[in-house]
């Protein structure tokens, strides 16, 4: 072994040591949805490009994740450097300065390409606090064969009146054929997600500009009465315990004529492996009443950096990779265009390859664009959020109100009683919270 070789060996060892010393580890908390697992599989691409950053994954089920990250950020635990959070958390946490602003994401990140509705929902006062990983809205999914048999044609943007008429025409209780399936299970993310979005299109709102609860208004009465009429006459039995999964299963079995729910369901109901009606599904925008807003919501699973992180730059580098155009291209290359995370970037919906692989793509984009989280209602409101109110108290209030509405659907109380109780409990909770 000559001198030069020895020197080279030493230099190599030194370099290796210094790289190891510089390597930064970031801990990423994600939800166990398919697309997040896919991101973990593809993360080799990131580590190859950034050898100085090591990734550590904490993958959890949705409810557990929400509790863990909330606890971590509220107690300033500093356990995570990248958190997966929804559009409900971002405006609240951003306003409290609990998140790091996502500016300077790199020259080729192209922030302007992110769908405007998503940017609005993930920003506070114009500053982006989280980057959308995938997003969704809600829309009408319907059976084309039943619609044809009923002698009707679904417009691209139906009204609630049309939905009711179509539901009446498609219902055949003896054949276990129900005109419409909607969420009835209590919960802020279950029936209240649907009902809040529906209420927006009827001109109702959760609070007025002075944070006074609005359940005693005519608009809410009309909303809830219309919903009850639809569900009791044309809905499946036991609708008050049906959530997303229950309705998905009913629709896949061919028991629902129409279903208004998350755009992500489109790929499940058109998948011939799971759905008996896969080739008979049509899509339309969520209904409206001619007042402006449609009855659709907006949601995005997004990545954010908590303010307490000690690896902010590395975390931002990772988020820039995971939510970039290049990432979408990477998924398409490895797993096909149909598996690309949807609903975040304009360029994806201009890509002919994607549009061909996903027949529901255009309707998803239109639905997302039809929602405006900064101005979701007809009358002005002091809050952000389409199917929720972005205040910390909402999860609790929303679920309790949802229980009253669910009990009304089950026939245990009238619409008026349910609204009166909702008004009282919301007022109580808001007073206790200091509004």
């Amino acid at each position, binding site marked *: 072994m000559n001198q030069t070789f020895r020197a080279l060996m030493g230099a190599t060892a030194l370099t290796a040591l210094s790289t190891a010393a510089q390597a930064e580890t970031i801990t990423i908390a994600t939800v166990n949805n398919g697309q997040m697992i896919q991101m973990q599989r593809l993360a080799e691409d990131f580590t190859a490009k950034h050898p100085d950053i090591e990734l550590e994954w904490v993958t959890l089920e949705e409810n557990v994740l929400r509790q863990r990250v909330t606890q971590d950020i509220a107690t300033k635990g500093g356990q995570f450097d990248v958190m997966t959070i929804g559009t409900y958390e971002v405006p609240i946490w951003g306003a409290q300065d609990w998140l790091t602003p996502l500016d300077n994401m790199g020259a080729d990140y192209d922030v302007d390409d992110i769908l405007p509705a998503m940017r609005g929902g993930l920003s506070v006062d114009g500053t982006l606090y989280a980057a959308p990983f995938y997003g969704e809205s809600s829309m009408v999914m319907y059976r084309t064969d039943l619609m044809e048999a009923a002698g009707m044609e679904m417009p691209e943007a139906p009204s609630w009146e049309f939905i009711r008429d179509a539901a009446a025409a498609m219902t055949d209780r003896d054949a276990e054929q129900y005109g419409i399936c909607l969420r009835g299970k209590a919960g*802020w993310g279950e029936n209240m997600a649907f009902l809040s979005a529906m209420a927006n299109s009827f001109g109702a709102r959760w609070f007025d500009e002075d944070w006074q609860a609005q359940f005693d208004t005519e608009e809410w009465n009309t909303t809830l009465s219309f919903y009850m009429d639809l569900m009791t006459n044309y809905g499946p039995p036991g609708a008050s315990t049906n959530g997303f999964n229950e309705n998905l299963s009913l629709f896949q079995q061919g028991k629902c004529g129409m279903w208004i729910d998350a755009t992500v369901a489109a790929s499940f109901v058109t998948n011939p492996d799971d759905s008996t009606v896969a080739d008979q599904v049509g899509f339309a925008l969520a209904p409206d009443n001619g007042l402006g807003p449609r009855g659709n919501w907006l949601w995005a699973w997004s990545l954010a950096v908590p303010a307490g992180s000690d690896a902010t730059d590395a975390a931002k580098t990772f988020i820039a990779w995971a939510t970039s155009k290049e990432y979408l291209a990477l998924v398409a290359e490895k797993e096909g265009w149909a598996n690309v995370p949807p609903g975040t970037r304009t360029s994806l919906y201009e890509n002919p390859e994607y549009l061909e692989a996903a027949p529901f793509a255009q309707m998803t984009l239109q639905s997302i664009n039809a929602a405006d989280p900064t101005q979701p209602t007809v009358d002005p409101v002091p809050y952000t959020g389409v199917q929720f109110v972005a205040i910390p108290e909402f999860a609790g209030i929303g679920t309790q109100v949802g229980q009253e509405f669910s009990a009304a659907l089950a026939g245990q109380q009238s619409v008026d009683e349910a609204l009166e109780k909702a008004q009282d409990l919301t007022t109580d909770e808001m007073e206790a919270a200091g509004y």
Partner: protein
Amino acid sequence: MATQHSRSAARLMMAPAVILLLGWMLVPLVMTLYFSFMDYRPLRGVAECCVGFKNYERFITSSSFMDSVLVTLIMVGGILAITVIGGILLALLLDQPMWGQGIVRILVIAPFFVMPTVSALVWKNMFMDPVNGVLAHVWRFFGAVPHDWLSQSSLFSIILIVSWQWLPFATLILLTAIQSLDSEQLEASEMDGAKFLSRFWYIILPHLSRAITVVILIQTIFLLSIFAEIFVTTQGSFGTRTLTYLIYQRVLESQNVGLGSAGGILAVILANIIAIFLMRIVGKNLDT
């Protein structure tokens, strides 16, 4: 008879375990007690100490409190009634010599091995679903309109689900008690011409009283904190919100740790009142 010396040695040796167990219990309890006097709402960034009994006052005066206590008592009472009566009947049946006894006994015990969330999901989706459920098909077979179990008879449905899980436990304890009964007594009474009902009422049931109190005591302790079955099936709606569920809603859904902790302390107090009451009955029963 232990000597003074061996008694103090025993105390010394037991001390670490006792201290560990006490710490295990005391730390969470003291923290809950501390939080219950705080205005602690982490999502608002509020953590103010010492607001007196304000949380307790708000928890007790809220319209949901009395309802939830009532629901808890009805639920526990209903489940106890079903499991004890059902348990006695099943134990009497299983005590009879029959073909395939081993398999039957295993089948009866099986529900106890199923996790609460799993059993609640199975009951909800397979049996009680008004469209696809087995019961709905049975109803339709007889020409009736399927019953919507979880929203029309929600409390009863949950009582049924939990009873199904706890019936094996009651049956097992009661079966061993029946088997410990001296068969000569029964034979003698039979020879004297006593009917089955009289034998059951005057001999078997008094003999079972101790086992029944044990079943009631142990089940009550577990049943006061039923959660998973409610979470999976009704999420506390349709009048199935127990005290435990209300506390969960206050702490985790409303993110009001102070208010929820006050509820937690109240639940501990209520549970202890019931426990003391039960212990007295058991104590009395075990003495005789």
